[in-house]
Structure formats: C-alpha cells, structure tokens
C-alpha cells in the first residue's frame, strides 16, 4: 500500500478492475499509488471479499451514464437545483445514517469511474452551452468529495476546469481533512470547499471514519485562510437529549475559527431516509441513536421527523447561526414552504425561488468575473 494512502487513512485491500476500465490514465495512476495491492478482474462478486459493504475494495469502472445530473429532488419539497458530478459511488467513511447503505446494497465496493477525463469535455460542453444559467455543481452526493482525493487526484482535474468558467461553481463537500491537494492547486476562483457539520456528540457517535468536528472546522479555517470560499451543511440534523447545547458548541467553534463573511451558504437538513434503510442501520450500527426520533412518512415516501420537530431544529440552529452573522446564505434542504416560513421566517416558495436565491449568492461571492467579491 502506498505510504500516502496510509497517511490519509485509506485502507484499500484489493482492487477490482473492469475490463473496459483498464486503459484509462486514471486507472494507471490509481494502481501506481497502490503497489502490492492485489488486482482482480471484474466478474467476481464483491460480496465475496467483505461481509460488510466493501469499504476496502476499490472497483475501477467505466461509467456508462451521464456524469452530470440534476440532484434527484422531489416536487413535494423545495429543492436547491444542484447538479451532481458523478465521479464515484460509495464512500470510505461509515456514517450510521448514510443513505448510500441502501442505494448501493448490491454493489458495496468503492466504485471510481475512471473515464472521467474522457467524459469531462461533455460535462463542460453542457455548462458552456448555457452561458445564461449558473451551474452549481457538486461531487458529494454519492461519495465524499475529498475522501478519495489523495488517491484519485480528482481535484487536479476538476479545479482548473471549473475555476475558469464564468457560469459555474464547483462545490467539494467533505467530512475529512484531506485538503492537501486542493490547497496545493493554486485554483481558488469559483471553487467552494464545504464541510458537513453536526453536533460533536453525533459526529463522535454516528460518523465513523470522519474527522472530528474540531478537525473539520480547523481544515475549513486553513482553506479559508488560503483564499477559498467556504460552505457548511448541517445535515442530517438529529434531535437527541442535549442537542441544543451540542449544536451551539459547533456554532461556537465556527465563531472562533471562521470568518463568516466568506461563507457562501450554510444549509440545514434533518435526517430523512427511505424505509429500506432502517433495518440496514439496525443491523450495521446496532448502537446508533439516529432512528430514535419520531418519524413520519413524508410526501416523497421518505421517513422524516414529525414536522414540529423539524421546525424546532431549524429554528434553533438558524438563531444560533444568525446570532453569529446575519448573512450566511442559510437555506433548507428538501423542505416545504410551510416549514421554511415557520422556521426561517421567509420562504423561497418554490424550487426555482431557492435556485434563484443560491444563484444570487454565487453572483455575490464571485461577482460574475471569477473573482471572490
């Protein structure tokens, strides 16, 4: 195993290589960084390797779908209109609440799509063909944006391309401190580094493999001091005894380390999940407390907290954040107009209203010129 991978806490025990993935430069680069790690040809059932989702099996694949896709929001709730750049599926971290556990139950290995470089021009062409539209693009929907960066060097490929485009931003969302490559890149414009945050207790108990909240905030501070615009995502919010004090501690930590004027947005979302995830959490994380709340079946078929509980969560954290700074670009992820009004005091009313609000934040921070405001 390459020393850099050990240094970054990645433990790849084996690689599964698809036949049509072997010729790509990204494949060669990843394999070069994994000397001594056995490489198996595809066709082997990844379940054979691990009793648990294959956090230690890296599957290099040629992805045949579109690399750029809209976030799969539902019409019942207000969606931010994010675009997902689909680089990989699954994540080396092991958060108890992670929806990927049910999404990829039949393909449990860490899957990296090695034809990214070949497909990236198509992605950029989609962006360039609509100069009047702002593309807010993220890579953190189906994997952690930076967890695999020491091995994949995605940031080397993506940052130069997005940094020079006037109608797009790239948001790298992580729970790790694997920032060395982005810091070394020299690209800052139109790049947003974001951290998922939670109360320290939830982080310690439920986010196995992730950096502590303190370390995440410290990594964010470092990136901000090096010129990056930051984002934060309080998602999933989980109520538990003492949650108010715990989330307040996280906000206090932000207050001590982070300049709020250079935060483009902070989102809040409460824990929600497809019903099929429940038995998986019970089996894989028997001591987890994330299922303890009062859940109902939401309008999109997902389990979510009873509405008054969600409103209280958002209301309390909004006030904590607004007491820190009045203009943080706060928004809710997948919530109704009613919940917006009750907890935030205003509402974008529709998904297009929220898209407009976030696009305006992009314009404000990057001024349409590629330079931070």
């Amino acid at each position, binding site marked *: 195993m390459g020393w850099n991978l050990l240094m970054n806490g990645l433990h790849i025990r084996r690689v599964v290589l698809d036949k049509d993935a072997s010729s790509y430069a990204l494949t060669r680069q990843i394999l070069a960084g994994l000397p001594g790690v056995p490489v198996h040809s595809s066709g082997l059932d990844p379940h054979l390797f691990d009793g648990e989702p294959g956090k230690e099996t890296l599957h290099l694949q040629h992805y045949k779908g579109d690399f750029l896709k809209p976030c799969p929001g539902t019409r019942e709730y207000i969606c931010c209109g994010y675009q997902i750049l689909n680089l990989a599926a699954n994540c080396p971290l092991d958060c108890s609440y992670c929806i990927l556990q049910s999404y990829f139950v039949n393909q449990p290995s860490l899957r990296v799509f090695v034809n990214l470089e070949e497909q990236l021009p198509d992605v950029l062409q989609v962006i360039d063909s609509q100069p009047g539209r702002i593309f807010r693009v993220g890579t953190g929907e189906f994997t952690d944006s930076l967890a695999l960066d020491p091995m994949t060097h995605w940031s080397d490929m993506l940052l130069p391309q997005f940094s020079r485009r006037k109608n797009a931003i790239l948001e790298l969302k992580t729970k790790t401190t694997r920032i060395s490559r982005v810091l070394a890149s020299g690209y800052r414009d139109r790049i947003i580094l974001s951290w998922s945050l939670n109360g320290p207790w939830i982080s310690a108990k439920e986010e196995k493999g992730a950096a502590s909240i303190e370390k995440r905030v410290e990594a964010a501070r470092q990136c901000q001091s090096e010129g990056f615009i930051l984002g934060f995502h309080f998602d999933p919010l989980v109520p538990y005894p003492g949650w108010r004090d715990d989330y307040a501690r996280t906000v206090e930590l932000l207050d001590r380390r982070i300049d709020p004027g250079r935060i483009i947005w902070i989102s809040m979302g409460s824990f929600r999940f497809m019903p099929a995830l429940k*038995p998986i959490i*019970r*089996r894989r994380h028997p001591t987890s407390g994330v*299922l*303890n709340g*009062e859940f*109902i*079946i*939401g*309008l999109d078929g997902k389990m*979510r907290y*009873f*509405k*008054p*509980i969600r409103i209280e969560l958002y209301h309390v954290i909004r006030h904590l954040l607004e007491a820190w700074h009045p203009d943080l670009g706060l928004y809710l992820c997948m919530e*109704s*107009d*009613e919940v917006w009004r009750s907890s935030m005091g205003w509402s974008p009313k529709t998904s297009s209203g929220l898209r407009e609000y976030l696009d305006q934040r992009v314009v404000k921070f990057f001024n349409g010129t590629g330079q931070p405001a």
Partner: protein
Amino acid sequence: MNPYRVSEIPLQEVALDDIGDAPGPFCMSFGFDLEPLISSIKTVGLINPPILRSDPGQKIAVVAGYRRIKALKSLNAVSTPCRLIERHDDMPPLECLLLNLHDNLSTRRLNDVEKGMVLSRLSAFVPRQEIVTQYMPLLGLSPNEKGLLFFLEMETHFDVKIKTFVSEGRLSWRAVKMLSDIDAASRAGLLRVISELMLNINQQLQFIDYIVDLSFIEKNPIPWILSELDLDRNHLDKNTNRPQQAKAVLNRIKTRRNPSIVKAEKKFSRAVINLNLPDGILISAPPFFEGEHYRLEILFREGEDLKNRLQELLRIQGLD
C-alpha cells in the same frame, strides 16, 4: 433418474414398528392436520403405498409418505404395503428427495415452511444457481438468490412456533423478515401478542416496529418492554372485542413510541369535536400533518341540500 424405476419395485408388507418415527432426511411436511388422512384411511384404506428406504443397521426411513405412515401408526395398524428401496437398488439421496418432492407436488401445495425444507435439503446436493433457476420456480417462488437465502435461514434458524405461524399463513412475510433479526425469547414474546390479539398484517408490522424501536430507545430487552406494557389479554378491557383490544394496544404502544405525534392527533381530534360539526360533515388532517391541506367531506342529497350545508358550515364558530 429413471422415472419408471420406483414403480418397478414390487409392493411388499413392512411392519410399522420397523419404520423410524423421525421425519427423516427426505421429509417435507410441516404444519399439517392428520385427521382428514386418518379418516380417509379408515374409510377406504391406504390408496397410495409409501416409498421407504432400508439402510443396514438403521430403522427403515420414509422417502415418500411420512404422513401416511404417521396416520397408520395412530390407527394402530401393524404393517403397511409399501415399495422398499433396498441398498442394492443404489438410489442416491438426491433421487429419493426428488421422488418425494414430485410425489408431493403432484398431490398438494406446499406451505412456505415446507418450501424452505425442500430448498434446504436440495442445497446439500444441488449447486445454488441450479436451485434458484430450476427449483424455486418449481415451488412457485421467484428465482432469486436473496429469496433462497431467506428460505434457508428460515429453515435453519426459526423455531417451531414461528414456523407454525408461517405455515398457517398467520404471519406476513415482512413480519417474518423483521422477526428473523430478533432473538428467540423476544420473538416468542412478540408472537404471543400477535397471536392473542390476532393482529392483522399491517398491525403486525406496526407492532413489531414499535416494540423493536422502544427496545433500542429505552435500552431494554423486548421481553422487558412487553411485560412492562402489560399486554396480557386478560388485563385488557373485557367489554371490548378482539379488534378493539388490538387497536387499543397499538395506540398505547404508539403513544409511548411517538408521543408528539399522538399528542398532535389528540389535539386535532379535540379541536374538530369542539367545532360541533353538523352530521355528515367531516374534517380530516393530512397524513401525519405533513401536507398543508386539510380535507372537508360533506354528505348531501342534492344541490339545495349542499347549499344549506355550506351555509351551516359558514355559521360555525372557531373555523377561522
């Protein structure tokens, strides 16, 4: 296997005492009622002779006809006509198993526990993929490996009580899956309540889900939670029937699991009652209060009646 071979074995009389009582390795019978067969044998005698297998040093084993042998023994019969597969017949165990399977499939429908028995026995001789593609469809099951694993687990790990529930169709598959993740003592406790209150399929799922949740939330074992809830039917309201008791029990558990939701439901019900709505006018909340729209239902005979009802509604105090 040569399909005519068994019929070529001549019939002979074998003493029932020489036949073992154990179901044996080819048996696929579970949860059956022996009485109709006893009655049939009493009336017209044994129609179809069992197929047995003789192994040196052991009691004679039943290949096909386990219930018939059991019925004959309970009738105190001394011997039975049968076809006895001898050692020199050289019939391998898989052929014996298939013989019994086809004998059963041609005369009756196997229950789900029996299907599990068949799949489990086959898995000793047949590759998994072949079981999925050939034998699962033969048993009327969807050919998928996940399903096979579940049946194998049921056969190996489930106790007789839960198998009995399954064989009698008293437990939904989803409930069985939920129970399969639970320890035996907890499972027995849950099954007792399900059985006593005769919970329907949806109630079973809700009940198991709530109790498992409470066990995790309160960090107490399921038997403790059940005993603390005091769900014994003798302690429930005797003036109510079983469905009412089931509903009351579920409401009690729901209140403990989801106090805020139940509180909101009660508050809404009180508010609607306080409106004193005229007969035939109903107001209902969106499911779980998640949506924003309430539903108004008005029963009316004709246009004039509807107008009057709407006028009545407009006069109601407290709607604003």
